[in-house]
């Protein structure tokens, strides 16, 4: 328990102390909200889909969560390169707990990031339909963050250095984001695209956020929670397996 806590705390401290990283990572969501939100707003409305900012905001929250979460997981590669990883790997505590501490820490950071984007979206005119459901939305953010941090951990445990990073960015994070329905409704799409979206865990996170924030859902909240829960569990399990196999 103490192990999990102290490693969680480490992730939080590292986050809070890197002001430039926090601000830098908020640039992208803001840019998306402005360019897409205002850029596509009129078309979206003409197509009879309502206010695009309302629709887009949960997607952008999901985007900042997946980016922050996977990066937090991948931080293991940095720790390996800067050497700190060894210190945790020889400690007399189970690697499962080490992995959990890091993953919870990363997930907390990603959730905070998601909440900040939520607050920014409010400035852009976003308004949740029921404030009482907002805390539940935060819970969904955390679950989504947990899932992707664990995925990042699993991947990072298999990589030696940052060389595979571009690959991960272009062939994992970007597709997961763009095919998740973050930017467009899943209704009425070519069936190939909806099928792909069904295999993308981020789709369910964003769908749940939409359900809770703008009362609009494709899969339904129960499915969303079930999928997020099961996949998060599976990724933590896989991630901790790979993490326990790390050699340094």
């Amino acid at each position, binding site marked *: 328990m103490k192990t999990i806590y102290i490693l969680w705390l*480490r992730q939080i*401290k590292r986050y809070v102390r890197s002001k430039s990283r926090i601000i830098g990572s908020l640039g992208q969501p803001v840019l998306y909200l402005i360019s897409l939100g205002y850029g596509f707003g009129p078309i979206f409305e003409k197509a009879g889909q309502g206010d695009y900012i309302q629709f887009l905001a949960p997607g952008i929250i999901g985007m900042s969560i997946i980016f922050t979460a996977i990066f937090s997981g991948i931080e293991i590669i940095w720790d390996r390169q800067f*050497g700190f990883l060894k210190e945790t790997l020889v400690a007399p*505590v189970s690697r499962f707990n080490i992995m959990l501490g890091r993953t919870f820490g990363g997930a907390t950071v990603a959730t905070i990031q998601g909440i900040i984007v939520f607050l920014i979206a409010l400035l852009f005119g976003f308004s949740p339909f029921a404030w009482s459901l907002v805390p539940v939305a935060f819970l969904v953010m955390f679950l989504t963050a947990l899932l992707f941090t664990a995925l990042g951990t699993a991947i990072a445990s298999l990589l030696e250095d940052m060389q595979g990073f571009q690959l991960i960015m272009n062939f994992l994070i970007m597709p997961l984001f763009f095919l998740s329905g973050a930017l467009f409704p899943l209704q009425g799409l070519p069936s190939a695209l909806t099928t792909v979206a069904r295999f993308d865990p981020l789709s369910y996170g964003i769908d749940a956020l939409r359900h809770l924030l703008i009362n609009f859902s494709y899969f339904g909240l129960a499915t969303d929670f079930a999928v997020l829960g099961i996949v998060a569990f599976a990724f933590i399990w896989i991630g901790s397996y790979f993490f326990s196999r790390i050699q340094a």
Partner: protein
Amino acid sequence: MNIIEVNNLVKEFGDTVAVRGVSFSVKPGEIFAFLGPNGAGKSTTIKMLTTLLRPTSGEMLLGGHNPLTESDAVRHSFGIVFQDPSLDDELTAYENLELHGVLYDVPKYIRRDRIHELLQFVDLHDRRDDFVKTFSGGMKRRLEIARGLLHHPKILFLDEPTLGLDPQTRNHMWSYLKDLNAKEGITIFFTTHYMEEADRIAQRIAVIDHGKIVASGTPAELKSQTNASNLEEAFLELTGKNIRNEEAGSIDNMRMARRMWGGGKRR
């Protein structure tokens, strides 16, 4: 019973054989030096003993436990100062020690006292709340040594602990370690490239070259075996005068850089 028992240990990295059938043993409470030229396989052996690397073949026991199958028991029994940097640069000196103390389950009241004591010992007490990234190479090294001493393990592995340290700190550190060894019976297993240091400190020495043990014994035995007047001569006699010009990997390059900058440019 021996506290470290290594039998025919082999480690291959693809085509390179880093350790080729090494056998040795260390008695409880002994101060044991593991010497060898660059790339001889010292660090690799230590990594296998400390559960960081899985050997290709061979047996080893630490305090009667197998690092492969009883990694938990083994991890409880040792402390280590790595050759390469292993601090969290984004944390303060104090936080690095605190984190270590928690990981090693050192009770809070002992932990606090010992952290302050050790920070004073390595002369970093007034820098305790500074981020490690602002430290010089030698300061980082001192902090790593303090961290290695924070929990009192049965076995202490020190992989080139004095690299980049000034003579004052080196003497200071060794007298502390000898004291700890005498008082608490901690077994010390260390590597170094300073032969006079090994001569002065070690009770027993094993010399490894190209992944093989080429000699072992007390410093006096090694010197008389080779008819040398000091350990450095004995070492050169045993391992030859050729400089190791193997293909340097990225770690080796980093270490080279560190050596050239006297430890001052460690990241």
